[in-house]
């Protein structure tokens, strides 16, 4: 069944979603700065930014999340968990890279031994409406990490912007539940053709191949490589790349309590912060930027693949776009992959 959603119906479509679900979608905080947030009014939704600053992971793994609350601190406190969510959720307008990333985090958070109930509960109760990338940026390299601007994996419904309308595909059981949505109209064959044309054009745009294949094995041999001595030099140790990364999932847990009442909260954390690995004794197993940069790259391209069989990078390019000093992960991968003879140091800026 080929469906479409006319742009003039979008407002009412969103209104319907907001009434029935908790809707998460990209919204602009200020010109050029978008994040995924809970939507209260249809006009908040803004699907124009190809790469939002904060990724869609926030709909499942918010930057700051209360894990449980207690009415009394110290000795007799009873913890009341907060993992149950109120309503079914919709994640709308997430790009294929961000959706792929959610399954990457899922492999860790929904592992068989322990399940992160906060993430799992949200994921179970969320319907994902993916949005194809008509205009991938020059920093995008999703096609090198196993995806593509129109990769439908992980989406329950998938939208393609045709200009006057969105082409709508229902891909899963969750997606099929929207079959009867009154704003979805039957699409013409020419809509399908247009969708395919847009898809092809966009896919051709993500043309630069970044050497991701085989990177795990190459990095196996590079743990103590002088590569790390240089590559970290310009990194200033902020958390931009890790916080904005759709696959990064490290967090910190702290208690916040005032006048006996309190909560245990988890907040995103970053392996690039010195304090992340600093022990109470003062010992830091990753004492300098060298070890911390190595951790970031190795986790994505060696440790995670060892455990789960794919790289923990989806090629969204956020870490390139928003890094204050232009650390370019693509160039790091190229550099790590280059065959270098003795005395030939190669270049990395």
């Amino acid at each position, binding site marked *: 069944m080929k469906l479409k959603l006319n742009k003039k119906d979008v407002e009412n479509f969103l209104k319907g979603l907001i009434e029935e679900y908790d809707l998460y979608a990209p919204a602009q905080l200020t010109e050029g700065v978008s994040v995924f947030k809970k939507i209260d009014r249809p006009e908040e939704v803004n699907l124009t930014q190809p790469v939002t600053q904060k990724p869609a992971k926030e709909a499942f793994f918010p930057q700051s999340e209360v894990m449980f609350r207690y009415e009394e601190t110290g000795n007799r406190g009873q913890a009341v968990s907060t993992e149950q969510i109120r309503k079914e959720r919709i994640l709308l307008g997430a790009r294929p890279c961000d959706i792929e990333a959610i399954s990457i985090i899922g492999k860790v958070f929904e592992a068989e031994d322990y399940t992160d*109930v906060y993430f799992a509960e949200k994921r179970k109760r969320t319907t994902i409406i993916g949005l194809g990338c008509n205009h991938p940026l020059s920093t995008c390299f999703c096609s090198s990490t196993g995806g593509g601007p129109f990769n439908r994996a992980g989406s329950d419904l998938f939208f393609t912007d045709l200009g006057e309308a969105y082409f709508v595909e229902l891909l899963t059981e969750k997606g099929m539940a929207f079959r009867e949505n009154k704003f979805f109209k039957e699409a013409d064959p020419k809509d399908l053709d247009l969708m395919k044309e847009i898809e092809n054009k966009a896919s051709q745009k993500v043309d630069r191949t970044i050497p991701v294949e085989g990177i795990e094995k190459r990095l196996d041999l590079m*743990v103590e490589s002088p590569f790390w001595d240089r590559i970290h030099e310009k990194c200033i140790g902020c958390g931009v790349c890790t916080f904005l990364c759709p696959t990064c999932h*490290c967090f*910190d*847990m702290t208690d916040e309590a005032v006048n006996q009442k*309190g909560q245990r909260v988890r907040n995103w954390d970053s392996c690039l912060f010195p304090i992340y*690995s600093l022990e109470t004794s003062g010992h830091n*197993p990753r004492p300098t930027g060298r070890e911390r940069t190595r951790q970031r790259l190795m986790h994505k391209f060696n440790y995670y693949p060892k455990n789960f069989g794919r790289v923990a990078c989806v090629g969204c390019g956020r870490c390139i776009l928003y890094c204050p000093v232009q650390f370019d992960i693509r160039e790091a991968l190229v550099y790590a992959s280059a065959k270098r003879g003795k005395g030939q140091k190669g270049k990395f800026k």
Partner: protein
Amino acid sequence: MKNPYLPIPMILKKAQTETSDRLLRTLELSFKNKEDEKSFHFIPGQFCELSILGKGEAPFGIASSPIEKGSLKFTINKAGVVTTALHHIEEGSEIGIRGPLGNGYPIDLFAGKDLLVIGGGFAFTTLRSLIAYYLHPENRTKVKQITVIYGARMPGLLLYRDELLEWEKRNDIKLVTTVDWGDKDWKGRVGLVPNVLEEIAPSSENTCAVICGPPIMIKFTFPKLVALRFPNERIFTSLEKRMKCGIGKCGRCNIGHLYVCKDGPVFSYAQLEKLPKDY
């Protein structure tokens, strides 16, 4: 779905200051709920996250052994916010725990072998659990000879001193305690752990070695084990790293692709050899 982040309630049955510097305190916790007790099964070397609402959580190796039913023991080194709170908490109070976490010592691999246990300072907690486990009549036949070398800077800094005295009297365990500096009452050895190891030189044939202690002790003891021809596959240690979740999610305790909280804290040197030196 079971929420692995929610602590279960325990009651502080008994607290005891262990060392003369008063920085180590042993807490004996009993289960508040019978069902929690029934479902709590652990092996020596595993740990728990101890939780004080309003202060936070920190990981501690279980110092009691699985044969000591009804309660769990933890020895707390006073260092940060949570440990300080654990030093101030009064008997009868409630403490949350999560666990048992981690892999524990490879008791299957130890079966039928000799055991060499080397401990230093306050890292003796899970070693105590391990030794007490094997000294129990039910388990004593599971390993053959047990040799223990336990060192501390001063006599007052040795943990579980009453128990050490009892062990010394037994003939099914060889216990050597040693201190860097003795005092007037100290009648035992004075000397560093690596030297004691060299001196008593247990056979490495069919022996597993477990070593836990301050990095400096490990640094100098490990080569002695190698010299005694212990293969890396049979030398084990329990690592400590900054941890939060304890279940392999929050990220910070990884060494290479392994997590100390989930795949450790016990590792063989053969395993560690293959990992980055991020510890």
